Structure formats: C-alpha cells, structure tokens
C-alpha cells in the first residue's frame, strides 16, 4: 500500500512547484498574524494545512488570494510573483478560493451563483454536465435562491462555482465544517475526483481524519509559521507528534 501511495508523490516532487510560498507575513490591522510561512504545492497534488485554531491557516489562504490588508514576503504561482497583485488579478491567473463562510450570494439563484465567476482560461474548467455529475443536488436546486440552501448544498455550490472557471489551484477552507458525515464523504469523493482531473488542491482542515483520506502531503502550522511537514505515507510515524501539535 505504501509503495502505491508513494509513487505519485515521487513523480510530483520532480516537477517545479505550482505555488511556492516563502517568508510570507501578514497583518490584520495592527496584529501580526503570519510570521514567515514557507511551503510549496506541486502540480496535481492535494496539500493540507493543519494546525490549531488561530494558527494562521485561513490567513495564509487569504494572503495568497490577496484579501488581507498588509502582506510581505513572496508567493510565486507558476513562477510569477503574486504578492502585491490585486485580488481580481490573482483570481484571473488561476487561483480560486472557496472560503470557510462559503460566500454564497443570497440575492442570486443557484444558477446565477454558479454562472457568476468569470471564465479565466479557454480550457481546463469543468463543463456544467460534469459539475452536475459531481453534485447532483445542485441540478435540482438551480432555480432556488442562494439563501434557501442547506449547509451541505451551500458548500457544494461554493466548490462547484470555482470549478467552471478554469482555475488550476483550488484553495478549500474547511470544506467539511459543520456538515453531516454523509455530505463529508461526498465532498471527500469530489476532492479525489478533482485530483484525478488534474486540479491542484490546497486544503485547510481541522478534521484530521477527513484530511488523511485525500491529502498527499501535510504542513503543520503554529503561531503563524509552518513548523513541520510530512507526506501521507509518513503519517503513521508522525501520529505522536501530530497529537502534540493539534492537541487531539
């Protein structure tokens, strides 16, 4: 089993990173949140950021997306420096964020929410048919208002709407938070299928058991820094340390 799991990670490690973060710092007003974050994401990988509440995981995603007030350091996407770019420019380079609060527009219908994000690449995005095979519930709810969805449906819509655009790197912020186990399984299968499709995924997750079903590599964050990193195959060996880091 370990050999089979290692093989794709090894081929991926040969490639240049899709996203390389080094010395990333960020502030919310006066509070210094990130104190030099370093990690990388290779093409086609699922990378998970782990850490306690307040470790800076969400802030890291927001800083990459350019929606944090002040940031410093370096974030290179396909070799291009994106710190300092406006958020809409970053989105158009091919990075999409599915935020923790989901950000469904309540005054728009499901269909309008789905069709809202701009196409940023001529190819690469999923077709609507493909999206509906991944999330059959959405097809039945197309005409409903964005505020009328259940939590699971909202999460599916939030993920679905960034799949159409052609973004290469999907950043999912706690996609399983507050959802029923059956929905969590469906989201897990979706992430696996998206990986098969060639999407690169950066996941922030509190649900460590969920993360272990989809992730290739883990980075552990604490106090605004990455303090440890290991591959999924080394998970067993690192369980002891992880329990210390996460306090679970």
């Amino acid at each position, binding site marked *: 089993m370990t050999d089979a799991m290692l093989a794709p990670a090894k081929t991926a490690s040969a490639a240049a990173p899709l996203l390389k973060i080094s010395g990333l710092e960020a502030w919310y007003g006066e509070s210094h949140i990130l104190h030099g974050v370093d990690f990388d994401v290779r093409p086609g990988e699922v990378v998970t950021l782990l850490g306690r509440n307040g470790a800076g995981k969400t802030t890291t995603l927001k800083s990459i997306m350019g*929606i944090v007030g002040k940031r410093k350091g370096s974030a290179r996407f396909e070799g291009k420096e994106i710190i300092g770019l406006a958020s*809409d420019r970053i989105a158009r380079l091919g990075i999409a964020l599915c935020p923790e609060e989901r950000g469904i*527009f309540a*005054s728009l219908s499901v269909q309008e929410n789905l069709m809202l994000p701009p196409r940023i690449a001529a190819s690469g995005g999923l077709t609507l048919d493909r999206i509906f095979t991944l999330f059959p519930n959405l097809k039945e709810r197309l005409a409903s208002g964005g505020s*009328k969805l259940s939590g699971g449906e909202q999460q599916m819509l939030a993920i679905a709407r960034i799949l159409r655009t052609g973004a290469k790197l999907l950043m999912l912020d706690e996609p399983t938070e507050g959802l029923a186990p059956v929905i969590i399984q469906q989201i897990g299968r979706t992430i696996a299928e998206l990986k098969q499709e060639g999407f690169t995924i950066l996941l922030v997750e509190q649900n460590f058991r969920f993360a272990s079903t989809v992730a290739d590599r883990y980075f552990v964050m604490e106090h605004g820094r990455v303090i440890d990193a290991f591959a999924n195959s080394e998970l067993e060996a690192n369980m002891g340390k992880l329990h210390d880091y996460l306090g679970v």
Partner: protein
Amino acid sequence: MSEPSPTAPISPHAHSGRDEKVAFVIMTALLLVAPFVIYPFFLMQALCIALFACAFNLLVGYVGLLSFGHAMFLGLASYVSAHAAKVWGLDPALAILAGVASSALLGIVTGALAIRRQGIYFAMITLALSQMIYFFCLEAPFTHGEDGIQSVPQGMLLHFIDLSNQTILYYFVLAVFLFGFLVIYRTINSPFGDILKAIRENEPRAVSLGYRADQYKLAAFVLSAALAGLAGATKAIFAQNASLTDVQFSMSGEVVLMTLLGGMGTIYGPVVGAFIVVAMQQYLGQYLGEWVTVIQGSIFVVCVLLFRRGIVGEIAGFFKRSL
C-alpha cells in the same frame, strides 16, 4: 442549460420574471389610457421623475451605492437639452441626446471620484459634487441663473412628429420612459446585473472570484447618471423650461424619498413612489403650499417605521412575488 426539475420548491427568489412581465403589461396599459382620464402634464412630469427614480434605484437598490447628489445629472441634462433646443435649434431628439451625453460625462468624472469610497463617504462626495454643479448652474451665463431657460421650443421630432401636440408629446414622453425602464430591467436581469448584486452583497468575495469591482460600480454609476440625464433632458423638452429646481439638493433628497416609499431594490417601487410624491406636490400643493414638505417628511417617517420595504416591497413580500 436544462430546466430545473418540477419538484424543486419554488422560492420567491426564483427568477422566472413572469410576475414582472405581467406587471409590465399592466403598467404599460394603464399609462397608455391614462391621459384620457388624468391631466397629461402631470403624467409627463410623473413619468420623467419616475425614470429619474428608477435610475437612482439601479444604483442604490442593486449596487448598494447611495448617491446623495443625483439631481446634478437630472439638472445638468435638462439645462443642456434646453439650451441645445432653444439656442442651437437642434431637433428635440438630438437635444435630448446632448443632455444624456452631458450627464454621462459628468457621471464618468464624478463616479470615478466617488466610487473609491463607500457608505456615508460615497454619499458625501456625491453631495459635494452636486453642490458644485448647482453653483455652476446658478452662475454660468447660459443657464440664466434664477430665471432658468424659459420657453424652450418643443419642435418637430425627426422633422415630422409635432411635439407641440399634447397627445403626441405625451406618447413621446411615455416611449422615452418605457425605453429607460426596459434598459434598467434588462441590466438588472443580465449577467452584468448579477455581478452588481454580488458586489453589493459581498464585495471582497466578488473581487476574489476575479471581478474588478470598481469597474462594474463605475459602469453602473455612469448608466444611472445617463438615464437620470435622459429623464432631465426629456423633462426640459416637454415642460419647455429648465430651472434650478431640478439641480437643487432638495431634488436629490426627494428621489431618495420616492425610492424608499415605493420600495428600494424593487423594479416597480420607484415608479409608484415617484407618482405618489409628484401627485402630492401637484395636487396638495395647490391647497397646502409649503406644508407639502411637512407632509412628505411625515410620510417618510411613517414609511421607515411601518413599512420599511416600501409599498411595492411590502406587496411583493406579502404575495411572495418578485416585482
């Protein structure tokens, strides 16, 4: 795109638009027969102000930008179109176009300055700019200060439609109103309109999906300014004058009142609100004089306290329809 399944629950948010279309047919039918029952001059006045309120509502109701100086677009366009028709002797259609162009240009300049700020700061910047336009209109030689531009010729539209005939004039004003109304309706129900609503609701999210919010806000601002200008320019032609009333601060305030009274963020609300306010001014004004302002203020208070969604908003909410 496939049809949603018939079992899907129908919510008031369902954007079928059928109710809106039925309401449009009813409104158009009423306005077509109205001049046989109601004084046409009042109707034309109300139609122009209603278009002005609809243009204002496009901005406040769908983009969430409260402009406190929208009278500058109404007033400037009315001066430009009156001047173009009277002094340059232009065809009424061209005079109106000149008015629209002037307010659109003003919209680009003021919009570019104002949309950098939000909320109360946006309102204050638009207010300050509109006061500048007011003093410009008071002092500039072509506006004739306190006198305004009087006896503007109605003229021959496209050289063969005689606008000095009251009936023809009414249907011309109605056509302009319906055109402006449909432009707004189409805008709100287009993908562009969806982006505007998304920006109103959660601007950072819309930006991080890849939209440069400022460009969309500016486009909506300029469109709103141009349509407010269309209302003002048409008003100058049918009423045969342009005066300081249309560019004054009180007009900017009244349009807020009309929109709130009728229902902010509803398509028909501003039309209803404008008809009520103009009717009060025209008919109550004869008997009560300045007291109309006091009554307007009281209605505003009642509206805010009792039916915050406005008349159309409350009706739509009660019947779970989208109007």
